[in-house]
């Protein structure tokens, strides 16, 4: 049987996916209302990546890509929050092994972003 922590982690992950799907719908709606859907018409073979700065500017202009950018952030945040939740719950229950592993995971995630940023600058 799943533990309480496992159930709460499952709930956080599910919630992040539901929010992400809601953002996809909101992005489509915003695009149709504000831009007549023109910002969603693109040559998919010319797809290009977006930096965090791009995502913010898309969002400020109410473009679908801004909402879609938030989808990316929400999906990642869901995973990060689930690990934070596990770390906190494990510390509260005195499960030092799981708490230690969870904190190590958070440190590795932070390191990934730092490595990505340093490669980007390089």
């Amino acid at each position: 049987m799943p533990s309480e922590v496992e159930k709460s982690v499952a709930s956080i992950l599910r919630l992040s996916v539901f929010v992400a799907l809601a953002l996809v719908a909101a992005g489509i709606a915003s695009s149709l209302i504000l831009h007549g859907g023109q910002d969603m018409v693109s040559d998919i073979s010319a797809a290009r990546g977006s930096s965090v700065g791009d995502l913010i500017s898309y969002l400020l202009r109410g473009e679908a890509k801004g909402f879609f950018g938030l989808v990316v952030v929400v999906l990642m945040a869901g995973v990060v929050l689930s690990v934070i939740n596990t770390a906190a719950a494990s510390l509260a229950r005195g499960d030092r092994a799981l708490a230690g592993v969870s904190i190590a995971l958070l440190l590795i995630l932070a390191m990934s972003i730092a490595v990505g940023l340093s490669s980007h600058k390089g």
Partner: protein
Amino acid sequence: MGAITGLGGSAIATPILVNYLGVPLRIAIGSGIVVTIANSSTSGASYLARGIANMKIGYSLAMATMLGSMVGVLINTLLPVRILFIVFGLVLLAAPLPGILRRGSSEFVREPGEPDRISTALGLEGSYYDESRRSVVSYRASNFLITFVSMIGAGVIAGLLGIGAGAFKVLSMDYVMGLPFKVSTATSSFVIGLTATSGGSQYLVLGLVDPFLVALLSPGVFLGSYISSRILNRMKTIHLRIIFAVVVWILALSMILRGV
């Protein structure tokens, strides 16, 4: 399909995006790994809530896959695209082989092995109700260190190609750690999300994630992984392997042909 096979959705999605929709490979990889998070969050959550995935084992091994993924992303940025195509194809080609060549019955449950000191210290054991066998299956993890090292390799592949690399994670958990196949597959689906978050955050800051592609693929991946995670526990293991092999080999060949 990604959730059933434990591969992660982007192993299926990336070749389709590149070969049939003309998306640049690195963008497909960067976007695909983020979509993998949606796949994992849906199926992994379902497996966790039903007690098939083991969170402690998943978290312990995710440390290795995330470190490996970090290295994999760095290698991706250094390799020529043509080589990436070939590596992608070769990895997909190799992925189903161990499952097919596996000796003995394809539908067996291991006797719990001797746990090592680290597995014991971390409490890496559990049990689940297997609906197809109609019984409770107990298991204990063993060979933690060897599994950990092999999971670093799986993480490198995940980061390099933007796939969940669940096939390799399942291999390690199944053969080395001695977990039942369904626990390996379910735990792998859960771990994929952690690995993909590590790799995805790197691809995002490198500007190799296209939000449009993520949004395009996420709803389909969500539906697919929700449905497949509901049927995993009722399927015979051999069915998983057949689906695994056919789909993956077709996609593998298409990628190799693009690279040569």
